[in-house]
């Protein structure tokens, strides 16, 4: 539902007493329907700071709510619930409960960066979306998004061997995200390759799967990358007060 149509009355806020008598008048059932207050009673001042501390979220405090990001948004055009302007507001004022209602769509940002170019204040909303999705994961509100799973598998292989092996990336990605390996498009792709690709290259591809070639003298680079990644991750966790932080 777009913001301007958002229902002011949420189902969970309706209270109905099955048996209720007030001053001798029976108001059981829907006669006694109440709507609980939806007044905001406090601001959580830590929330903006936490998200601003994650990569991409640095400029969130610049937002003046003009709505350029939402107007420019590729995803919003498809799903009006996807509203970066609104989420930035919720985060700035620390309305965690409200933000969590949308936790399953925030990660859907496709990083087209149209908002980045539309934003007059250089908030970089795309970065904020990334930081917010990251925050939701670190806080344990959402499982790792498919793109995070992919990134982890991809970068994990690079860090380990200095190279990626495509078939292994795909297999492990499907396993991590619990998707069947026998995807129709993948089957068609492999069949096509088997028929049309020169045999020499097919053999080399097959060998690569089995032998897992490595970049020579990679150990030193691996250590340095791992050190850096761990440092950044620990800092991120510390910023949001999640487990495993400093």
């Amino acid at each position, binding site marked *: 539902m777009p*913001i301007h149509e*958002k229902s*002011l009355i949420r189902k969970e806020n309706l209270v109905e007493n099955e048996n209720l008598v007030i001053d001798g008048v029976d108001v059981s059932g829907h006669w006694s329907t109440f709507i609980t*207050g*939806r*007044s*905001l*009673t*406090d*601001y959580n*001042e830590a929330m903006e700071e936490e998200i601003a501390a994650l990569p991409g979220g640095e400029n969130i*405090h*610049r937002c*003046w*709510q003009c709505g350029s990001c939402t107007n420019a948004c590729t995803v919003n055009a498809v799903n009006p619930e996807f509203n970066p302007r*609104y989420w930035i*507001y*919720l985060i*700035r*004022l620390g*309305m965690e409960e*409200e933000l969590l209602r949308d936790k399953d769509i925030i990660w859907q940002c496709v990083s087209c960066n149209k908002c980045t170019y539309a934003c007059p*204040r250089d908030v970089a909303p795309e970065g904020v979306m990334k930081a917010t999705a990251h925050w939701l994961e670190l806080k344990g509100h959402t499982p790792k998004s498919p793109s995070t799973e992919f990134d982890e598998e991809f970068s994990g292989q690079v860090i380990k061997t200095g190279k990626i092996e495509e078939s292994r990336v795909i297999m492990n990605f499907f396993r991590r995200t619990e998707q069947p390996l026998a995807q129709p498009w993948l089957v068609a792709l492999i069949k096509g390759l088997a028929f049309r690709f020169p045999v020499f290259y097919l053999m080399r591809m097959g060998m690569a799967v089995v032998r897992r070639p490595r970049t020579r003298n990679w150990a030193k680079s691996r250590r340095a990358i791992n050190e850096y990644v761990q440092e950044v991750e620990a800092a991120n966790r510390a910023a949001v007060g999640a487990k495993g932080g400093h």
Partner: protein
Amino acid sequence: MTKPVLIVGGGPAGLSAAHALASAGQKVVLVEKEDRLGGAPILDGYAKLVPSHEWAKDAIGAMVDRVQGREGVDLRLNAQVQSFDGEPGAFTATLKDGTKIEAGSTILTTGFTHFDSVNKPEWGFGTYPDVVTTVQVEQMISSGKGIRCPSDGRVPDRVAILLCVGSRDRQIGREWCSKICCTVSANIAMEIRELSPKTNVYIYYMDIRTFGLYEGDYYWASQEEHKVKYIKARIAEVTSDGKRLLVKGEDTLIKRPVSIPFDMVVHAIGMDPNVDNMTISSVFGVDLNKYGFIAKQSTYAHLAETNRPGVFVAGAATGPETIDDSIAQGQAAAMAALNFKPAGKVAAE
């Protein structure tokens, strides 16, 4: 013109007019009803001024210094004009103590009066000690005592600044924007954040009118460098839960009622017409505009003129005005007074 120019009011506009005229060799009589010069910035103890960030006592103080004791400037403190008679070029002003002043022309720089927040009782001023005005916060800063809740002297965790108090409100007959309060509030918010970095500052607004170059230095800077938060809501009422102030209203961007605890609430009070404007109008024979400020003739063909020939006007007497523009208008009025030739005498000369 051999007769002196009478300037009424010793604030920024009056001081700048007096200085400009004296610099041109024109004799000036400056009448000020208070016991010192400087106008609102000095009398009300403003802190740092927009846009220079200079302390009011230094910046306006320097304006006072260059007028005080200057040859050709006749200062009359604790004085008010009781009656004003004569013709353009030959006016006679009679002060309350009976002194008569001969003047060729006069410049009214009688300024404004701060809105009295008691007239908006729903916002708690006068009911709760921790509801204060921007003027009081200016005084907290300029006195060097810092930002403290008046009730118990604690440093507030959270401060709300309510904009448009006494402005843009038909309910109290004030249909004007006071022009400076957005910028002043952003400035105050930044100063609060600097003085006590742990204090969170929220500004409740309807529109933000930090016009011109104030946009970057005040509105943007307050958000980007000082993390001041702006919430689009006109507050309905300020109450108390017994411990802290409760600010109630509707956050119109998310369409939800708010009822948020605060330690201090600041009213960004607007600029009213000078409370003496009815008297000034009748003494000097000048018209007021429909809002109660002194009416100015069309700016295109007239320089600082009122409806009465020989009586000029400058600064916040004509409507909400910034200090910088008041100074510029004072200089413009000085130019007008300097060149003033009463009708009928032009041909004779």
